[in-house]
């Protein structure tokens, strides 16, 4: 069974068998990453452009590594210092890159919906590497992969996403994907960070971390985006840490071995204390490694359509 779509724009509406196929395919690529030579040839001769209109280190490196490990040719593009700063439109930029015979475009953009728009104006495959506060599908896929690797399944697990849900594309993609796979999902954060009517996405809403902690299997801790002026959403960083920071004491009180995830980069001792981030239940570095395998799976599955 192939994937239904020729692009990966988001997990909203993606059928369960497609999610399953990507996660299963990623298992094979995870094995490739353990080999002495971590490179396989299926995308030989394909060219992939990474168009990043917003700062990113780990996602860009992870995609680039995934592309190279599949033997694709890789074009890098960053908006700073490019024609974008000269006023070129997204459409023109993309069409110019495509005119150089590019097969796939991986795009990160500050505007929600930019990759969807791109998929209507170019011929190649488009992969969303994060658009505004909308979706970040490959991050959610690697989160799901990591949960499945650690706990053996997704069905009926309780995953709680903590932090700024309203501005988080990671949260949104995780909610779509996890709900489709049959997980129970809750969100937890101050009221200023929880969008109204988010219950309609099939999640539970909590404002008190200690109420929900004793019932969760996985905590996905979001980064407080200080650079996006998150400061106006809560009184102080100290208060945020006191209310929503994940600490060892808090987890011990909940009396449960909770798997800890974080999409990175971590603000240590703000949303996550150092002893938890580096503790035995943390899978944060596995997430990074699995990210390469999951992105290889997505690129491989889309490449032939």
């Amino acid at each position, binding site marked *: 069974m192939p994937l239904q779509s020729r692009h990966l724009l988001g997990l909203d509406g993606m059928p369960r068998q497609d999610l399953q196929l990507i996660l299963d395919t990623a298992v*094979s690529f995870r094995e490739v990453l353990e080999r002495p030579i971590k490179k396989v040839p*299926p995308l030989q*001769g394909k060219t992939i452009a990474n168009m990043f209109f917003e700062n990113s280190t780990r996602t860009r490196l992870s995609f680039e590594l995934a592309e190279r490990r599949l033997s694709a040719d890789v074009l890098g593009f960053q908006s700073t210092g490019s024609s974008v700063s000269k006023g070129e439109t997204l459409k023109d930029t993309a069409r110019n890159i495509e005119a150089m015979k590019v097969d796939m475009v991986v795009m990160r953009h500050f505007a929600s919906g930019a990759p969807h728009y791109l998929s209507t104006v170019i011929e190649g495959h488009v992969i969303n590497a994060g658009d505004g506060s909308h979706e970040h599908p490959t991050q959610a896929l690697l989160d799901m992969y990591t949960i499945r690797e650690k706990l053996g399944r997704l069905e009926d697990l309780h995953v709680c996403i903590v932090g700024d849900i309203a501005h988080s594309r990671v949260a949104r993609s995780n909610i779509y994907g996890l709900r489709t796979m049959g997980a129970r999902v809750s969100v937890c954060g101050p009221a200023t960070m929880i969008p109204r009517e988010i219950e309609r996405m099939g999640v539970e809403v909590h404002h008190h971390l200690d109420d929900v902690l004793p019932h969760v299997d996985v905590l996905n801790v979001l980064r407080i985006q200080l650079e996006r002026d998150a400061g106006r959403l809560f009184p102080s960083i100290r208060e945020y840490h006191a209310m929503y920071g994940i600490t060892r004491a808090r987890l011990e009180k909940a009396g449960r071995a909770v798997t800890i995830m974080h999409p990175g980069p971590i603000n240590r001792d703000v949303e996550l204390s150092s002893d938890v981030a580096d503790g035995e239940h943390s899978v944060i570095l596995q997430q990074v490694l699995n990210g390469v395998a999951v992105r290889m799976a997505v690129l491989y*599955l889309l490449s032939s359509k």
Partner: protein
Amino acid sequence: MRRLKAQIMDTVGVDRTLTRLAHEILERNKGAESIVIVGIRTRGEFLAERIARKIEETERVELKIGFLDITLYRDDLLGKLEQPQLKSTEILFNINGKNVILIDDVLYTGRTIRAALDALIDFGRPRTIQLAVLVDRGHRQLPIRADYVGKNIPTTADESIRVHVREADGEDAVLLMNPEEPDPCPPDHTV
């Protein structure tokens, strides 16, 4: 649809052939000391397990056995409309300096073996790679030959060979099938 032309081997025939292959492998390598077994998924993996067991019984040793999925190394990937399902590769030992016995069910164009050789080389530098197949049906498109052949079966290019193994198909058999015929009664009655 393909009709059966002839049954070439049954359960007993397959077993005898695998026993002979196991002995030939031991004879050529002067024992089991330096060898490791690698089966190509899917049918080759079951044949590899059986040959390994026969060698182990004869020599009273424990053999290292691995499985190779060659999908990512195929030369026809880019022409395909959908990507074939990946299966897992498990080679959890060092192949450097070993004599690798590569096992598959049918040797035909040689393209699978070419892909398998590329895949194996990515795992290290074996001393030798030797190829064992249950059936060689001819029609090679690449300069590849087998070191151990269960049976040579001359075929025409439009015939096909089906190998059934107990583990995947419920029985052991090698079947020669006639050329493809159009289905006389297609399900949607459009022809």
